[in-house]
């Protein structure tokens, strides 16, 4: 009952004109970021953090969440029109979406993406509303040992599922944790690994790491593509932006199934939108009476994956909000934003700031309605963005990144860091080291060390505390399972060649 009051109060918060405006701004920028190649939700959110300083945290977080789920809408547009996913999660859409566009059904493909995204996205937020609170009551029993093992689970899951090679995922995770140890140790006041750089005393800022790894490196990759001159021709939107009766009938099942798959995958750590859309695609192909149409413009192959990657974002908000532990790269960046505003998500936040939590969750209902309008009747405006020559777009992304990085501290060190991490991200991509695990462990590293040391202090230095409760044992078991999963999956042919890389 109390929760219901909080939910309704949340609507009062997010319906305030100022918050409606920031919701709109967030989903609008999210759509743009989704349409544009070279910049994704992680970099988009990170670049906004310094600019939004001094804003009311509720409004700022509503806007950043809007960017996060808004990008999933925009990502499908480029998949359909130029066979280049604007976001990693839209990669499955580019298979049948582009084929539909070639067959003159671009309007239908865009329409089903937007409608599917809306239905599944809203379904996801309903599920988020229902599941967030029960999970917090469990999380209230968590002590430092439980939190430590939970973070271990989140990291192992992301490490083993983020790329083709679990070892490289592990490497990326440990590198993130190592970067997190740079700076003054909070408990002893001891500076660690600062390498004589005074700015490193405060640690390596995660904004610079994210901007370097996700924006600057993406620009380098884009320039490489420009040099080689590889691009599919852009197709014009033909046909009405609506579905025929037959297309409706074929899409409705995939939308619901995709919504459910996406939400479940989203709640679980590690997998993320890309895997959700791959799972939805393979499910639809298996259920279809005409599996041979897949790859040649089957509308189910657009409706399912697009729905899945949208309800996935709502699912991913569940562990972030109710446990305070994100399960992927983009939600890790959102956690970083929360922390920079001095807000620690988790069960206690539901008690201390119900207005913020529910204002944020409820704003997602409104944001999804706005996104439907932006992406259906107004999609033509965003398509114009694709006419910006890539040769101008990529240099501009660097210039935007420079403002974002410099605005944090006004420090040149941060600029050199985005270049450094830009090069690192480019090289890592070449040698197949995923970067999402690094960002997750960088954001969680400090918390992880704190809970590790608190747990050890409680137990008087006895590591047995990590296997003392049913929760920790379960979480350790889940971690072991997630490490072993890729080796088991490698036995299934379908997964062997699937592009599992979650680049945001």
């Amino acid at each position, binding site marked *: 009952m109390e929760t219901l009051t909080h939910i309704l109060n949340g609507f009062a918060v997010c319906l305030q004109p100022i918050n409606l405006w920031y919701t709109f701004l967030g989903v609008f920028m999210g759509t743009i970021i989704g349409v544009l190649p070279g910049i994704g939700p992680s970099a988009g959110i990170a670049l906004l953090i310094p*600019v939004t300083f001094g804003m009311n945290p509720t409004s700022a977080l509503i806007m950043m969440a809007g960017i996060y789920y808004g990008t999933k809408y925009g990502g499908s547009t480029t998949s359909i029109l130029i066979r280049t996913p604007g976001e990693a999660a839209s990669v499955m859409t580019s298979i049948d979406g582009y084929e539909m566009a070639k067959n003159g059904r671009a309007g239908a493909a865009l329409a089903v993406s937007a409608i599917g995204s809306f239905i599944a996205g809203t379904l996801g937020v309903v599920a988020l509303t229902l599941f967030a609170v029960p999970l917090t009551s469990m999380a209230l029993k968590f002590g430092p040992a439980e939190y430590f093992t939970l973070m271990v689970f989140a990291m192992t899951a992301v490490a083993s599922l983020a790329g083709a090679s679990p070892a490289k995922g*592990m490497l990326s995770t440990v590198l993130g*944790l190592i970067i997190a140890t740079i700076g003054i140790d909070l408990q002893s006041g*001891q500076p660690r690994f600062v390498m004589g750089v005074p700015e490193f005393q405060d640690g390596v800022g995660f904004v610079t790491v994210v901007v370097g790894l996700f924006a600057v490196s993406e620009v380098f990759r884009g320039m490489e593509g420009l040099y080689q001159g590889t691009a599919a021709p852009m197709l014009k939107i033909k046909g009405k932006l609506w579905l025929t009766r037959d297309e409706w009938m074929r899409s409705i099942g995939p939308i619901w199934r995709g919504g459910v798959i996406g939400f479940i995958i989203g709640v679980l750590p590690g997998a993320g939108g890309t895997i959700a859309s791959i799972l939805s695609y393979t499910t639809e192909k298996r259920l279809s009476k005409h599996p041979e149409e897949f790859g040649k413009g089957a509308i189910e192959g657009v409706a399912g994956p697009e729905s899945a990657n949208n309800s996935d974002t709502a699912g991913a908000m569940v562990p972030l909000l109710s446990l305070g532990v994100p399960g992927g790269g983009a939600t890790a960046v959102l956690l970083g934003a929360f922390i920079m505003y001095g807000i620690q998500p988790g069960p206690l936040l539901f008690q201390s700031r119900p207005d913020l939590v529910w204002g944020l969750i409820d704003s997602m209902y409104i944001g999804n309605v706005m996104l439907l309008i932006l992406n259906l009747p107004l999609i033509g405006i965003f398509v114009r963005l694709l006419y910006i*020559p890539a040769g*101008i777009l990529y*240099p*501009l992304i660097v210039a*935007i990144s420079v403002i974002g990085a410099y*605005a944090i501290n006004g420090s040149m060190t941060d600029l050199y860091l985005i270049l450094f991490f830009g090069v690192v991200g480019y090289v890592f991509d070449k040698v197949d080291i995923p970067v999402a695990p690094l960002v997750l462990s960088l954001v969680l590293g400090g918390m992880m060390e704190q809970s590790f040391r608190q747990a050890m202090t409680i137990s008087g230095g006895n590591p047995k505390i990590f296997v003392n409760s049913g929760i920790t044992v379960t979480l350790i078991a889940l971690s072991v399972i997630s490490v072993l999963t890729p080796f088991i999956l490698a036995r299934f042919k379908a997964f062997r060649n699937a592009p599992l890389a979650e680049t945001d």
Partner: protein
Amino acid sequence: MADRVIFVCTLILAGVYFYATEQLPSLEIGDPLGPKAFPRLLGIALVLTAFVLLLEILRARKTAPAAVTSEPSKRGAYWAVGAAAIWTLFYFMVFEPLGYVVSTSIYLLVLTAYFNRGKWTTNVLTSVLYSLLSYLMFTKLLGVTLPSGILPF
């Protein structure tokens, strides 16, 4: 080949990190573990990672012979990216002395001249207008400090 380099780098990094951890002075006030314990754990995790990498390398060698060929067009692209990275470094070096507007205009002008070849009017207009407008928007409207450099505002 690349995987073997990663393996060696991981081991080197583990060694350096272990060494740096041991160099930290021990301050154990109200904390039985001190600032070294967690980094030590990470050092061990890094060695473990190297071990798993080695296993993957060995397994890959058994299943398929590695055939890595770098085509000449690929190598040209790497040079282009390298040049862009160095050009970005130059940009950062003059960022504060010249100021945001001037340095960013020059930076964008050169990159667009190369990657958006031949369209001089568009390139010059975008480079200068973007730099000027973003500067005014961020410094005057959003209160973000950017270096003014040689310009008086």
